[in-house]
C-alpha cells in the first residue's frame, strides 16, 4: 500500500531508534505524551516502546473521544434509541461503552432498540432518506476529524429537507483538552517533557492552534503521522527539542498537515456549530469552551432540542481509575481493576472498551510486559 508501507519499515525504525538512544542524554528521563488515541494504538500495536531506550517513555493521553464521552451522554443515547420512533445511527466504537448500571448500546440493540452501526454520516443520511417514517438521530462524537463530516451531513439534511434527521452532538475540541492536561495541577506529577500532537485532527485544524500551548506551557509539540516510523521520528524530534531547550511546534506529518489546515472544513464547522460554555469530559471533569453544539440557525436539526434531552450526570464506578489513566497519572496496569474486574469482555470504564483507549491497547498488545508490581498479566480464556 503506497504511502503506508514505506512508513512501516522496521529497519529504518531501528536506525532512528538507535539515533534516539545516541542523542538521549544518559541519566536524563524523557517523558512524552501522545495525545491521540490513534498514536496510543500504533505504539502498542507495533511495539514501539520496545525500540526506545529505557530513559524515553511514553505516557498515554486523553485523545480518544470514546474514552472521554461521559456516561450520562450514553445514557441519553440509549434513552433516545428506546423511543419507538427513533433509529439511532452510531459509529461501531460506541456500542460497548459502559453506561449507567452496566447498560450499553449493544445490549439496548439486543433488547429491540433500533440502533444501526454506520461507517459514515453519509449512511445516516441515506437511512433518513430511505425511511421517512423513522426519526433518524446521528450520535455524533469525536474531535475535529469527525466534526466536518457531521457538518456536511447537517447541510445535506437541510438541502434535502429531511425533516426526520437530527444530530445528537458530542463533538469536542483538541486544544482545550491539551490545555487541560498541560495546565492541570497534576501536570508536575506527570513530568511531561513534550507532546506528540494529533495526526488527522491537525489536517483539519492546522498546526497553528498548538503554538500558544507550546509557548504558554514551555513544552515542545511535534505533530506526527500515525504510521510507526512517523511516531519514532517524532520522538527523535522531541528529544532534540528538549536537548536544545526549545519549545516549538514542529510538523513531522507535513505530507498531509499544513499550518493553516483545511479551510473548507473549518468554515463548515464554524457555520454549523458554536462552542458550549462548558462540557463534562469523562475523567477530566468540566472543561470550559471545549465542546460544540449546533447553532440556533440549525436548531431544527439538533436532537437535544427536538427530543428535549436533559442530561443527568452519571457517576463512574468509584473504583474505576480511567480519569487518572486519561490524564497520564497512572499507567493501565496500575489501575486496581485492570485485568481483574476490568477487561475488554467486561469493561468497567471507557479506557478499556475503546480500542484506542490506553487500557484496551495495553491489554490487547502489551500486557505481557511486567506491570508496576513486576508481574505480567495472565492470559485469560
Amino acid at each position, binding site marked *: *500500500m503506497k504511502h*503506508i508501507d514505506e512508513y*512501516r519499515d*522496521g*529497519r529504518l*525504525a*531501528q536506525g532512528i531508534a538507535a539515533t534516539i538512544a545516541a542523542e538521549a542524554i544518559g541519566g536524563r528521563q524523557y517523558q512524552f505524551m501522545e495525545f491521540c*488515541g*490513534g498514536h496510543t*494504538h500504533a505504539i*502498542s*500495536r*507495533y*511495539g*514501539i*516502546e*520496545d*525500540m526506545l531506550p529505557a530513559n524515553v517513555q511514553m505516557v498515554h493521553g486523553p485523545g*480518544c*473521544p*470514546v474514552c472521554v464521552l461521559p456516561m450520562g451522554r450514553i445514557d441519553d443515547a440509549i434513552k433516545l434509541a428506546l423511543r419507538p420512533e427513533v433509529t439511532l445511527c452510531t*459509529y*461501531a*466504537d460506541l*456500542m*460497548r461503552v459502559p453506561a449507567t448500571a452496566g447498560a450499553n448500546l449493544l445490549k439496548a440493540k439486543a433488547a429491540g432498540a433500533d440502533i*444501526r*452501526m*454506520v*461507517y*459514515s454520516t453519509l*449512511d445516516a443520511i441515506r437511512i433518513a432518506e430511505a425511511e421517512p417514517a423513522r426519526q433518524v438521530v446521528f450520535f455524533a462524537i469525536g474531535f475535529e476529524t*469527525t466534526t466536518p463530516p457531521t457538518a456536511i451531513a447537517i447541510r445535506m439534511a437541510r438541502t434535502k429537507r429531511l425533516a426526520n434527521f437530527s444530530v445528537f452532538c458530542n463533538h469536542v475540541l483538541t486544544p482545550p483538552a491539551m490545555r487541560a492536561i498541560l495546565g492541570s495541577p497534576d501536570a508536575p506529577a506527570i513530568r511531561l517533557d513534550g507532546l506528540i500532537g494529533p495526526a488527522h485532527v491537525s489536517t483539519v485544524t492546522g498546526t497553528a492552534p498548538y503554538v500558544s500551548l507550546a509557548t504558554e506551557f514551555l513544552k515542545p509539540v511535534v505533530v506526527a503521522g500515525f504510521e*510507526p516510523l512517523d511516531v519514532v521520528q517524532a520522538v527523535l524530534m522531541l528529544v532534540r527539542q528538549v536537548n536544545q531547550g526549545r519549545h516549538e511546534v514542529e510538523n513531522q506529518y507535513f505530507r498531509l498537515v499544513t499550518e493553516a489546515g483545511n479551510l473548507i472544513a473549518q468554515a463548515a464547522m464554524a457555520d454549523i456549530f458554536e462552542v458550549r460554555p462548558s462540557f463534562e469530559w469523562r475523567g477530566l471533569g468540566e472543561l470550559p469552551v471545549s465542546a460544540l453544539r449546533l447553532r440556533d440557525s440549525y436548531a431544527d436539526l439538533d436532537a437535544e432540542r427536538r427530543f428535549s434531552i436533559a442530561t443527568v450526570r452519571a457517576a463512574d464506578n468509584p473504583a474505576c481509575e480511567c480519569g487518572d489513566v486519561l490524564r497520564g497519572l497512572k499507567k493501565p496496569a496500575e489501575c486496581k481493576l485492570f485485568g481483574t474486574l476490568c*477487561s*475488554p*469482555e467486561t469493561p468497567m470504564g471507557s479506557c478499556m472498551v*475503546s*480500542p*484506542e483507549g490506553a487500557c484496551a491497547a495495553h*491489554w*490487547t*498488545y*502489551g*500486557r*505481557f510486559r511486567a506491570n508496576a508490581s513486576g508481574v*505480567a*498479566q*495472565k*492470559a485469560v*480464556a
Partner: protein
Amino acid sequence: MAQLIDEIFRDAFDNPLLDQGNDQAGFDVPAGRMVMSTDGYVISPLFFPGGDIGSLAVHGTVNDLAMAGARPLHLAASYIIEEGFPLADLQRIAIGMGNAARNAGVAIVTGDTKVVERGKGDGVFIVTTGIGRVPPGLDLSGDRARPGDRVILSGTIGDHGVAVMSTRNNLGFETQILSDSAALDGLVADMVGAAGPSLRLLRDPTRGGLASTLNEIALQSGVGFLIEENAIPVRAEVAAACELLGLDPLHVANEGKLVAVVAPEAAETLLAVMRAHPLGRDASLIGHVTRDEQRFVQMTTSFGGGRIVDWLMGEQLPRIC
C-alpha cells in the same frame, strides 16, 4: 411443500443411501478409530463471494473431521427453514452442498427438514454432522504442543471474513476477495502421509481467526507461542480491506485454512508437502511453541517490536478509531 423440499435435496445430493428414503442410513464402518463432529451454520448473509451457507456447512464439518487427521466418510444434514424462504434459493444452496460434498468425496446420506414460522428463523439454518476414520498411529490433540515445536499455517488469512463483510451494505466497500471456503481433507491426507507420527495437532482458524486458535492451543497445551508477523501470508486486498475497516487480519475468520503444530525435525518436509497441494500453496512456517506460564501468544511485529496476539473479544465490530 414438504415433498417439494424433499425433492430438492434428493436431487441435489443424489446418492443411493439417501434415495432409499428411510429415516436413517445404514452402512458398514471400517475397523479402527472413528471420529464424529457436528456444527450449526447460521451465517448471514446466506450467499457471499466464493460460497454460501450450504458449501460452508459441508466444508466446515469435513474440516472438523480432517483436523483429527480423519478421512471423512458420511455426512448428515438438518435444515431449519423459515416459512416463505424462496425455493429457488433453497435449491441453489442444496446444489452447492451436493457439489461440495462430491468434491470432498463424501455423501450426505441422511437428513431432515423442518419449517418454522416467519420471523422465527433467519432464512435457513443448517446443522451438519459427519463421521470419519482416523488412520492408525495418528494422535492429534490440542494438548500435545510442546516447547520447540514448529507452527505451520497453510495459507493466507482473512479472506473469508472480509468476503462476507464486503456483502454487508453498511460497510460500503467493494472488493474481488473470495471466501477461502474449502474442504481440507485432501491436504490433510497428504500431510498425514508425509509426517503423521510427527504431527502434534491440526486446527482450522475459523471464528476468531488465527489469534483465537493459537490462544486456545496455548491454554490446552499449557504453552506459549512466538510467531513472526512477516511470515504470516495476507493478500494485499485483504490487508487493504482490514486497514479500511480497522480490523486485525489475525482476528478474521477463515474457512479453508489450517494450523499445524509439528515436531521440529519434520517441519521442512511437512512444509514442502503442503506447498505441493493446491490448498497449501502459500503454506508458511510462522513460528514455534515456547515455554510460557502465562500462556501468551507473542508476535514479533513486521516493524521489529513485540506484541501479544490476543483472543478476539466479543463480536468483531469494524472500528472507526
